[in-house]
């Protein structure tokens, strides 16, 4: 840290203990502070260099991928991937991201007993759970949004249709960001309650990765057995990544052949909402029970 210029009086005045007479902002402010702090620490800000490597690295890789997409999209007559498509394809990177970040946000607090210090302050247990959940969702949203913004910047500058082309891209970006919100909310609502089960980061990451990885082959196998039947269309519900791809397909018409929802798009949408609500409820329940 750089040292402040010291007044050259040569005397250190100990003014003694000063009582604090200023404002004391309540619970809402405290919860917001925890939220902001948690978003920052998701990317390792305010923490050691090692803590930045994985989250910033993932964000960097996603950004580079998006730059490459800009180049490919501008060279080909039809763009290969639009904004909502980014949401669908980057879901796998985002699952890795939440598996790294969620334990960082909640397991560490359990392990170091820091939770005890939070709970002895004006925030409530539910405030803690919601602030952490919101922080994880926000950080995950950033992971989706940054590549989309890069793509938007690249596409808007290289459009041949003038201002109309820019507005076209802007419309696409808005759709993409909407998809990013859905993806971030679901991934966070699944990962955070899982991470809060263990105080050990490695275990917490393992549980999250396991849920995402183990559901994928089951879902794929089910689909392979019954392709183009109702069961095949519904097979994607089991795997969170394909569930999200299904929602993208239903809402935004993204078809990357990750999943085939057939006429069941609304079921994908409904299950997504149910999972987000259930995940939030689980997180709240978990922190009502946790020992302080």
């Amino acid at each position: 840290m750089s040292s402040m210029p010291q007044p050259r009086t040569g005397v250190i005045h100990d003014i003694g203990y000063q009582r604090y007479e200023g404002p004391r902002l309540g619970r809402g402010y405290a919860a917001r502070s925890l939220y902001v702090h948690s978003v920052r620490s998701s990317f390792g800000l305010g923490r050691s260099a090692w803590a930045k490597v994985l989250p910033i690295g993932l964000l960097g890789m996603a950004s580079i991928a998006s730059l490459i997409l800009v180049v490919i999209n501008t060279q080909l007559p039809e763009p290969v991937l639009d904004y909502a498509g980014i949401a669908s394809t980057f879901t796998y990177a985002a699952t890795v991201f939440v598996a790294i970040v969620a334990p960082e946000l909640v397991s560490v607090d359990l392990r170091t007993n820091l939770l005890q210090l939070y709970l002895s302050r004006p925030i409530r247990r539910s405030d803690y759970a919601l602030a952490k959940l919101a922080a994880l969702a926000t950080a995950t949203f950033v992971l989706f949004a940054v590549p989309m913004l890069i793509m938007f910047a690249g596409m808007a500058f290289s459009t041949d249709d003038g201002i109309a082309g820019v507005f076209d891209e802007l419309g696409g970006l808005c759709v993409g960001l909407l998809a990013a919100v859905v993806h971030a909310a679901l991934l966070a609502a699944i990962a955070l309650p899982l991470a809060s089960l263990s105080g050990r980061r490695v275990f917490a990451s393992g549980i999250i990765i396991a849920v995402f990885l183990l559901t994928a082959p089951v879902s794929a196998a089910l689909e392979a057995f019954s392709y183009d039947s109702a069961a095949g269309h519904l097979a994607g519900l089991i795997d969170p990544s394909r569930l999200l791809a299904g929602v993208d397909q239903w809402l935004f018409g993204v078809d990357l052949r990750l999943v085939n929802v057939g006429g069941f798009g609304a079921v994908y949408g409904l299950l997504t909402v149910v999972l987000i609500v259930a995940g939030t409820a689980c997180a709240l329940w978990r922190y009502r029970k946790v020992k302080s």
Partner: protein
Amino acid sequence: MPWNTAGQYRRRVPLIETRALQKRYDNAVTALADLTVTIEPGVVGLVGVNGAGKSTLIKLALGLLEPTGGSIRVLDLDPVRDAEKVRARVGYMPEHDCLPPDMIAAEFVTHMARISGLPAAMARDRASETLRHVGLYEERYRRIGGYSTGMKQRVKLAQALVHDPELLLLDEPTNGLDPAGRRAMLDLVHRIGTEFGISVVVCSHLLGEIERICTSLVAIDAGRLLRSATLDSMTQVRDLVVVEVDEDVNKLAAALTATGLDVRRHEDRALLVQADSDAVYDTIRDTVADLDLALHRVERQRHQVADLFRDLPRTEEETRVVNATA
């Protein structure tokens, strides 16, 4: 002690007031059974052996646990119903490690100040100030993980103090410290209680250690109140000096008794002398010199919590021994 008054503390309401307080955990362990005590402003030592219910009482005071019976009020508020208000005015330093190793101390204390409701700029100022008060000013931009145990304890104290609470709850603040570190920590707690004017409830299982910084003591055992009194009344009769000599203990006992001191036999070759004033030390020295005895040690008796369980004065047998030799 000149500061042995509640006047300087901002409030005169009792810090903690319990009535038939009971806490039973789910697994049927009773941590507190029928505890009725009123803790007045000041530096209060909460003593008891490990498992006596000290930490449980602290957690009930913070509203982290709910009582299963009876009532507890903190700063005249209900810690469960008015949890937010109570916690904004109380600082808590837990017994065990609770710090994130990869955060910088100054940032961590600032963050905790904000969680207590201080605006960002004020939080930063007060974090630096508080770290200075606990003696970590130079090292405040280092990561907590690289701190020694003593420094970590100071950070724990700083985060409890940063929002200028009216009441500090310290759970075994000298845990894991070496003798010098213990002394420094206790001096700091003493300063907080006197110069800063913040009431402190400090838990310890070592009475001898905290008696010198406290204005009153509350002793609990097996979840019940054992004793509650100002320090003067509790330790008056306990201010004892151990005098150990090589031989002729009985002769020394007789000589000291003759000077009007209350003397009892202690261990094999030692005596316990009640010391009401510093002059007693002079008397002991002179008497030993007059009798030409080899003096091994003269030291103030260190009390343990266990001493509070014994009835005072000592056993009749000891008294008889002294009387017989007189």
